[in-house]
């Protein structure tokens, strides 16, 4: 019983994606020209390879984002028990947010968030 369910699950997953792609291939208008294969279709021919290096500034934002993003992992369990734990849990999360906010403030003050 379980095996069938699993197979059905995979089949339906493949089917949903496949049908979507098939439909778009059938319905969508097709244009065949050289610009189609360029990295940006904005009318201006690209100069050089489109495999270029990205600015290091992106990484800085990504790293700061990453840290704050992962902290949500600690907030979910807190949200589950927040009601039963009452005031203590609330104060603890305030301290947690306070330290996180201080970190953001520090990054801001050190011009890590400036784009230039």
């Amino acid at each position: 019983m379980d095996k069938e369910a699993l197979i059905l699950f995979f089949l339906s997953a493949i089917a949903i994606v496949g049908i979507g792609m098939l439909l778009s291939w059938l319905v969508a208008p097709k244009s065949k020209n050289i610009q189609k294969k360029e990295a940006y279709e904005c009318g201006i021919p690209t100069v050089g390879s489109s495999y270029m290096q990205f600015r290091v500034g992106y990484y800085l934002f990504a790293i700061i984002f990453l840290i704050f993003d992962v902290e949500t992992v600690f907030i979910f369990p807190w949200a589950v028990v927040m009601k039963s734990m009452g005031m203590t849990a609330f104060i603890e999360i305030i301290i947690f947010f306070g330290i996180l906010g201080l970190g953001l403030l520090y990054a801001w003050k050190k011009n890590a968030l400036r784009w230039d």
Partner: protein
Amino acid sequence: MSFSDFLLMRNELLLVAAAVIILIADMSFSDENKRGLYNISLLTMIIITVLGFLPAPSGKLFGGMYITGDIYILMKNILNIATVIVLLQSRGWLEKPGQQKRMGEFILLLVSVLIGMSYMISSGHFIMFYLGMELATIPLAALAAYELNKSKSAEAGIKLILLAAFSSGILLFGTSLIYAAAGTLYFEGVMAILDSTAFTTLGLILFFAGLGFKISLVPFHLWTADVYEGAPTNVTSFLSVASKGAAVFILVIILNTVFKSLNDVWDPMVYALIIITITIGNLFALRQRNIKRFLAFSSIAQAGFIMLGVINDGGLGMATVIYFVLVYVFSNLAAFGVAAAIENETGKESIDDYNGFYRTNPRLSLVMMLAMFSLAGIPPFAGFFGKFFLFTAAAEKGYYILTLIAVLNTIISLYYYLLVIKAMFIDKNGAPIGYFKSDTAMQVSLVICILGIIVTGFTSGVFDYMVNLSQQFFLTLQ
């Protein structure tokens, strides 16, 4: 649980408060003049260090996740002292023009590492231990790569973070096996349940490998020399005393509590590690010409000596470990302080450059000489007593051959420690390092180190106090 229970975490809470203060202070001082920031940080750290000596309550917090007691406080005090000395030594380097802008980062990372080490020592649960260990490692990698435009520094940071992450992964895998065997992650619970099977042995070995990396015992020492050489000298000194000391402390605690029932498994393991660590550390130290690399290999050998106290698995062993780390803090920081002063002034790191140093800078040479004597274990300095007690601890359990090998290695180590002294006092040099005056903070730190070397060596009360506390610790276990 009431809020007064949080007083048990006094040291850590104060350190966290200090970190927040430093963070805010860093934001409020201008980039060009950070002297005020340095003074504030130093003052807070000194206050915390002094407060650490006040009597503190002992007990448990968060259902046994956090354990404290007199012996834990003692260990944390040693680490606090080491941090204050490192902070004093790095003043001249931090206040160099152009460096000042990033001074706040250095101090903040240093304090974060100290917080991590404190939590690691006091942990009573594997999650707490892991968190503390990582907090004590990740900022260290950033510190090692502190000098942004030096490729050596960048290299050191990368080697440290990659190998630290890898070794903590291995440690965690071992922890997961122990969890499977015990069903709990509380140290107390694991201690009560764990028995010696192939499964738990594998867990112990993986766990030990992870910690062995931090102490840089020999099969896991490959990162040490490169990181020590590449990192800024002040960071290296912190890495070699505080980081290593904290790891040794928690290793002693964990082996004697959590893995107590696996005693006959880790005893031969430690036995073999001691022999190869001391021997290889010594042999490699012989051929180093760079002072930081030389001290790196000498610190590997010293780590092997420290393990002699671990193998004793009793009150005496623990006391000797703590005593030796205290002595090691003073001696090694004195040596690194002189090396840092010279590097700051002239940028020279090679032992050959030290030729004729005594003629131009007699006082610094004397400090270096004392440090080397203490590291080599020449009586009447503290290092001698440290090593002597370690040998006693190992011999007490009947490891006579091991003790003999360690003693023989002490003689080899004497040779290379004396090489440095020979370079400074006897060797001729056409162009020795010129006379210079190190800054006041450095002088104060060196005086503290020298006093430490002499006082801990000559007052027997220090060691008695440690033995007393360790025996109490072992009594509460039963």
